[in-house]
């Protein structure tokens, strides 16, 4: 009797539950971007990709395929387009090379156009410094390398390639104003260029050297704060360059290391090691203590400096070592890092390293995205498997 009652109960409960509605599959669209969204690019893949994450929810929102050894994305402030400097070969890994500036719709992430540019774009592990967009989003400059160095000028407003100019001995391009830009030269000077309103070059020249490119080279990964570009050097100095006028002016360098820290081997680390939060006058540098020639080693701390007083105002231990950083433009900013983690116990990681199996470690390394509070250094979230080879983080 009990069995019959139970069967009746469960039978009723099954029939009372409504069927799931029929799915109508669609393709998602992005909402309006906000400062908590960040693009994570792997610039050195045979088929590079940029993935978009919402750092608030930890969700991946979408992806762009960006060709061979991508030059990363260009995110204009007007938000109507996303640009990606790309190289393609007609037979995937060989054949005719075509370089383009692909133009994407920021809502659908579909390509809505492209501008063909000279097939000479420089591909390298670092990305910042190989292209730069003017503050008014009108012109994009792209570094070329054959190995002769040159710079392509692209008119974003009218969607056309304008000109290619020689930049002999100079690699690393930085927009200064709406019509001026400069490039870092091997002798420690800057090449400066002035364009007219259509992007054609009307004047150019070279500054005097302002750093010793062999004794204390600056990294090509500069950060713009107001009218200055700030470049960190291998030995621990910040070299500011004022770009208020057509001809850039180097400002006196300042040290972000004490003599003792320098002697202890502290240097910047990773591939994108520097960023700023201009609203709060803070400069963030990814740091490690591997000594000379260690400047691409993963960072284990982030040091925070006041841009004006040059004082170090904070020093954060990172939860995971990192290959790059980016600071969000939120009022209370977040610090994003390209985190390297291993899905094995720490002792096993150490043993692999000790016995010379670093390449095995690289095979199992997970490249994630860590999100810290930039004010406190507190880790809020780790997004695992964010990329296969972290070379660039870009806040949107």
């Amino acid at each position, binding site marked *: 009797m009990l069995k019959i009652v139970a069967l009746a109960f469960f039978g009723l409960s099954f029939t009372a539950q409504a069927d799931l509605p029929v799915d109508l599959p669609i393709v998602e669209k992005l909402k309006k971007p906000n400062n908590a969204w960040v693009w994570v690019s792997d610039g050195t893949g045979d088929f590079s990709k940029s993935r978009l994450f919402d750092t608030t929810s930890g969700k991946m929102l979408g992806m762009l395929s960006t060709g061979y050894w991508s030059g990363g994305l260009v995110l204009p402030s007007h938000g109507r387009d996303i640009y990606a400097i790309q190289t393609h070969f007609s037979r995937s890994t060989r054949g005719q090379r075509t370089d383009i500036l692909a133009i994407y719709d920021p809502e659908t992430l579909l390509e809505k156009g492209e501008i063909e540019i000279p097939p000479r774009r420089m591909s390298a592990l670092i990305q910042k410094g190989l292209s730069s967009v003017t503050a008014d989003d009108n012109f994009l400059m792209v570094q070329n390398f054959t190995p002769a160095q040159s710079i392509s000028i692209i008119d974003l407003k009218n969607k056309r390639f304008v000109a290619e100019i020689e930049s002999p001995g100079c690699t690393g391009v930085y927009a200064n104003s709406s019509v001026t830009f400069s490039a870092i030269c091997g002798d420690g000077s800057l090449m400066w260029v002035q364009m007219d309103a259509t992007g054609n070059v009307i004047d150019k020249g070279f500054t005097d050297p302002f750093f010793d490119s062999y004794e204390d080279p600056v990294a*090509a990964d500069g950060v713009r704060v107001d009218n200055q570009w700030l470049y960190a050097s291998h030995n621990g100095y910040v070299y500011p360059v004022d770009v208020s006028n057509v001809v850039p002016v180097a400002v006196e360098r300042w040290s972000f290391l004490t003599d003792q820290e320098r002697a202890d081997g502290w240097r910047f680390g990773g591939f994108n090691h520097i960023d700023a939060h201009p609203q709060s006058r803070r400069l963030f540098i990814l740091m490690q203590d591997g000594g000379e*020639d260690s400047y691409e080693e993963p960072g284990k701390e982030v040091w925070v400096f006041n841009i004006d007083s040059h004082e170090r105002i904070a020093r954060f231990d990172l939860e995971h070592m990192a290959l790059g950083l980016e600071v969000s433009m939120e009022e209370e900013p977040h610090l994003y890092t390209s985190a390297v983690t291993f899905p094995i116990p720490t002792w096993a990681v150490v043993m692999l390293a*000790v016995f010379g199996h670093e390449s095995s470690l690289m095979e199992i390394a997970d490249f994630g995205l860590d999100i810290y509070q930039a004010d406190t250094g507190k880790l809020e979230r780790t997004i695992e498997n964010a990329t296969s080879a972290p070379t660039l983080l870009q806040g949107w």
Partner: protein
Amino acid sequence: MSRFDKWLERRARNIARKTSRRFFLAKLGTALVGASAYPLLPIARSQATALASEADPGSPEDCEYWRYCAIDGFLCACCGGTASSCPPGTALSPITWIGTCRNPADGKNYIISYNDCCGQSACRRCQCMRNEGDKPVYLTSQANDVNWCSGSSADMVYNCSIAAIMGVEDEA
């Protein structure tokens, strides 16, 4: 161009003298373990590669091989080539970056050409990053972050890197 040519010529001897004499742990191992914590590590590895010739010690398939002091890439010796030859099916990039490495067998500093091999996709075996004396991309001839397949007559995708001896550094 001439101002840079003259300047580079002036610096060339200085570069060769200063570049890449140190013998560090591989980058990741350094970050994880700390160079000072395991100073005997390179010695342990040389014992493990005892089969190599006495004049050219070490295994070309090992990131710690002396010629790789300024390399950053996949070792062609693990990909069908050798320390000085590209794998079949690839093209040798004629443009390259240069380092100077000390051969522990004879104590001499050799000038090493790190050519990239191109035309097949990334080998992804024996990744090796040493970076001793590596410079930023505006010093292109000492920059190992550059994809040296790109832009050359072998304008194709990157497969792996070799470390060919170009000669002995002039001690003068």
